[in-house]
């Protein structure tokens, strides 16, 4: 006779606001097995869980493409908006103006951003609108079966043998140039780096632009592609080691003087950057652009936090918006009194 002991359930693991990881999941992914985008989704789930942010406070926005399906796969109880191709930035702008208290995450792809959406992308960067903008960058159009996108590298080869003969648009360089205030490049396969970069983006106030190389296993993961897992693994050149220290954890990070830099973020959190190249200052725009250009020349994929600036006013600051969400202002604050109409009518007589 055997005795079965029923194990007592393991204590449910919860975050600082008492929610378990399941609260941060969304519906099941419908992307290809092994798609880099799924790994990014996982990091987003982890980041919001770790930060202890209530999902309802988040708005998830996207355009069109494989990448743009992903908002359905994380934070299932948050509101989302799957917009039209290349136009997520304008939806984001409207949504943030309507409700400045939302934490807005826009997920886009390289076609959605760098081709059809380049106009809206650059203007979002200029405005420094407080949003997290993630490009899931695989250098091709997955959903229409693998055509090149505008981030495909010169000389990269399609499965069909077609060689890309146009230079890529470097979305990070553009973002830095135009005024985004938190710019990073990462790799979907680099968990350790991507998670703190996303956490840092959430803690930042202003446009946080993350270009995440995310291989398309179906159409762009072969020899000759510069956006394949093996190519990116071989050519990734991390600028630094990144770790994130949230505002709610009282941690002092020990490091040898001169071996690390701290980037203070809006909500009191910090990014600690170790093993930076000597003299690298992430607030130096010119230097950041030079590093990107040099990496491009060498055929390297430079990753990590490239640029951060906490000084530039956000679009919300520039518009001098009231603190409360505009969408919640009562009638008494948005409809001027009768005396105002009388005054205007009198002037028109």
């Amino acid at each position, binding site marked *: 006779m055997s005795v079965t002991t029923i194990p007592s359930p393991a204590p449910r693991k919860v975050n600082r606001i008492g929610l378990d990881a399941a609260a941060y999941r969304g519906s099941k992914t419908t992307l290809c097995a092994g798609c880099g985008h799924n790994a990014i989704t996982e990091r987003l789930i982890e980041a919001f869980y770790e930060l202890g942010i*209530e*999902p*309802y*406070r988040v*708005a*998830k*926005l996207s355009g069109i493409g494989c990448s743009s399906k992903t*908002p*359905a796969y994380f*934070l*299932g*109880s*948050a*509101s*989302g*908006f*799957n*917009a*039209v191709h290349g*136009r997520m*930035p*304008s*939806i*984001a*702008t*409207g*949504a*943030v*103006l*309507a*409700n400045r*208290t*939302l934490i807005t995450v826009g997920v886009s792809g390289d076609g959605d951003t760098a081709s059809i959406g380049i*106009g*809206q992308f650059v*203007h979002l960067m200029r405005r420094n609108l407080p949003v997290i903008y993630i490009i899931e960058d695989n250098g091709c159009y997955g959903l229409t079966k693998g055509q090149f996108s505008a981030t495909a590298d010169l000389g990269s080869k399609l499965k069909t043998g077609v060689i890309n003969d146009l230079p890529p648009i470097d979305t990070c360089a553009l973002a830095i140039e135009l005024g985004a205030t938190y710019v990073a490049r990462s790799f979907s396969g680099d968990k350790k780096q991507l998670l703190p970069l996303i956490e840092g983006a959430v803690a930042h106030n202003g446009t946080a632009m993350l270009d995440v190389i995310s291989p398309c296993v179906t159409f762009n993961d072969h020899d000759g592609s510069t956006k394949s897992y093996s190519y990116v693994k071989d050519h990734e050149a991390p600028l630094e080691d990144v770790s994130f220290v949230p505002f709610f954890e009282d941690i002092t990070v020990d490091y040898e003087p001169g071996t690390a830099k701290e980037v203070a973020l809006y909500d009191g959190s910090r990014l600690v950057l170790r093993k930076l190249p000597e003299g690298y200052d992430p607030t130096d725009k010119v230097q950041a652009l030079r590093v990107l250009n040099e990496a491009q020349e060498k055929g390297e994929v430079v990753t990590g936090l490239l640029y951060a600036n906490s000084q530039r006013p956000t679009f919300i600051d520039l*518009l*001098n*918006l*009231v*603190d409360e*969400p*505009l*969408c*919640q*202002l009562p*009638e008494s*604050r*948005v*409809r*001027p009194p*009768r005396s*105002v*109409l009388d005054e*205007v*009518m009198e002037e*028109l*007589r």
Partner: protein
Amino acid sequence: MGSASTVITEKESQPSRKRVVNDLSIQVATVNGSGSQSANLILLRAIFQMGIPVSGKNLFPSNIEGLPTWFTIRASRRGYIARCAQVDLLVAMNPETAAEDVRGLGPGAAVVYDQKLDLASLRKDLTFYPVPFDSIVAPICPDAKLRKRVRNMIYDGVVAWLLGIDLAELERAVRKQFKRKVKAADLNWKAVLAGYDYAQGNFEKTDPFHVERMNRTQGKILIDGNSAAALGCMFAGVTVVSWYPITPSSSLCESLIDYMKRYRIDRETGKATFGIVQAEDELAAIGMALGAGWGGARAMTSTSGPGLSLMAEFAGLGYYTEIPAVVFDIQRVGPSTGLPTRTAQGDILAAAFLSHGDTCHPLLFPASAEECYGMALEAFDLAEELQTPVFVMSDLDIGMNLWMADPFPYPEKPLERGKVLTAEDLNRLDSFGRYKDTDHDGIPYRTLPGTNHPSAGVVTRGSGHNEMAQYTERPEDYVRNMDRLIRKFETARSLVPRAVIEDEPEANFGIVACGSSHWAVMEARDQLREEYGLNASYCRVRAFPFDTGVRNFIQRCRRVYVVDQNRDGQLCSLLRLDAEPADTVKLRSVRHYKGLPIDARTLTNSIISLEAPA
């Protein structure tokens, strides 16, 4: 009843030297960039202040400086404020067009002109008043740079003497125009007086045109439709505005910016209760409005034809995602360089069905400044009630010209924010389906992002969704959603502003028109009755979908003339789609598409030619 071959105009029937009082049309022909706008507005305002119904129309080129521009001022004791094709008094300031302008006049007209143009030899049947503008302006305005502008004020003085405009009213109008710029007002007033004195000292009045004080403008205001719409938006509580500059719509958002900066800054904090963004293009402009509408703000954009085309994709997404937004379309003529500064009603069909797939949008048609204001208020309520983009179809004529209007009433109705569920509402409900037709009116309930409730969050997406807002491509789900959307559009029929109908007891036929055509129709109905003995019932459509009154009107009429300011009879086409099949044959299209506002005489003649074909 008269026949087409005996058409005579009202003016031609009068003996040419009989006094014509408070019934004239002045045209000022200038070069744009010469600063004539102030002089023209002052003239218009002075006549208005004398109690005479007046309207002004600026016919201008797409240019900043150097091309011909015309401003017409019509004074009408009967209250006609449509454009009048006939010009009674021409002020010819533009050497380029002067000869052609003079040749185009009807017999008996008067011409005030720059003496050096030597126009008097061109016609024997006109009255000419040559004015040496340069020698009059030089001593008044020593600053040569200012002279180009100030010399225009001289014709105000000349015209005032010729017509008998009250000098006190003219001075009041000058002072109003220059507001606190006292020195500028003084200088310009001096020029007006110099013109007046010159005319008094040198001319003998031989034309028949006069203005005399009456009391038909008391209490009224003068405003352009775009400013009126902007006021409506402010009092509608708009909070997010996105726009891209385009003539003739820019002045709507520019006026709005001025008003909001004055009246919508929080007293205590000094902060704005609104966000206005000049977008990178119209695709972004409507995207921002929809993003904000989705977020729960009262949001709008304003554009004109080319911009409307760019908004097409998002308009469809707005329709299917069911997001409120207000889009002002200040209509103009054609794409690209296609007469961008000329008026038309060219976007009616494009707006009604804007986008791809099956879409239909509510349209509102303001006919006046009052309605630009009132319909702006209504549009925001409708957009939120119906959860859909609503288009306000103004045009260049209403939007950019100055109109007499009754002072606008303060909105009595509280804001109608539509079916929005809060977290507390959700707690009381068993379930929430974003696209469920709970009330059987086709209008579902929505939640706003940021609502603290586990079932509040939905992913908003295109047409492929079920009642729970989940992605689906199932045929049943798709059809159910499509059919509900049509139910919603039927609901809209009863919510939109009703047509204004004036039935004539012994009507020969009916007229249907919308928007700025209204003023020509009013006048044409009088012409038809007085000159031809024809009674026309009138239905002024104020919205699409048409309310049932429109259908009934067509049913009652023997024939219906549908007035359009476009080539293709777009309003007529929409009515054909909506009318009972047996009634569609009654509809006769009357079209005006010259880039100029429609005038009554053209309309009357068109109807007569169709009534009694030669």
